[in-house]
């Protein structure tokens, strides 16, 4: 029963990941694209959390931490670049 819940959770969050990829690929403004990329990594961190709960390994949480760190730096860099790419 509990294993089934976690299995379905992995499936569901994989679908969510696909929806977010479609969101990134969709034609939209630069800020919305940066925001979608940030969401993509957040969903990935959630997937790693579900994996950690399912396998009871804590190594996935290390990966999640590093991924969150890189995503934060990437968001800052992309937003900064977009900010300075137009004369104010």
């Amino acid at each position, binding site marked *: 029963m*509990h294993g089934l*819940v*976690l299995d379905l*959770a992995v499936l*569901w*969050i994989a679908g*969510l990941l696909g*929806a*977010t990829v479609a*969101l990134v690929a969709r034609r939209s*403004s*630069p*800020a*919305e694209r*940066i*925001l*979608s990329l*940030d*969401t993509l990594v*957040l*969903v990935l*961190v*959630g997937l790693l*959390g*579900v994996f*950690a*709960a399912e396998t*009871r*390994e*804590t190594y*996935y*949480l*290390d990966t*999640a*931490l590093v991924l*969150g*760190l890189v995503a*934060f730096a990437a*968001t*800052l860099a992309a*937003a*900064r670049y*977009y*900010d300075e790419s*137009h004369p*104010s």
Partner: protein
Amino acid sequence: MTVGGGVMIWIVDALVVVGLIVMTLGVAGIYRMPDAYTKLHAQSKAVALGVVCLLVAAMLRGEWPASLRGLLVVAFILVTAPVGAHVVARAAWRGGEPMAGERVVDESAPER
């Protein structure tokens, strides 16, 4: 060894389900909202809190002392999500992205 016993695993299930629901609502919000500023609401609040629920579930389920590092991830996400949202919103505003809606008022507009 893990904390609790028979009850804990139900709490883990409940946290996973709640986290998934909140995250799904957040992604749906990003699809539905009309402009970048309102999309940031769905992204930085709903999705981040859903991820926090999932990470707490993983923390409760893992081996006890080692799973405390989940707390680190939770704290990191709770700190960085608002900062990232603010930076993106500032870039969008300075980039001149329009606000959707008929009667919106951009109160910061004269300073631009």
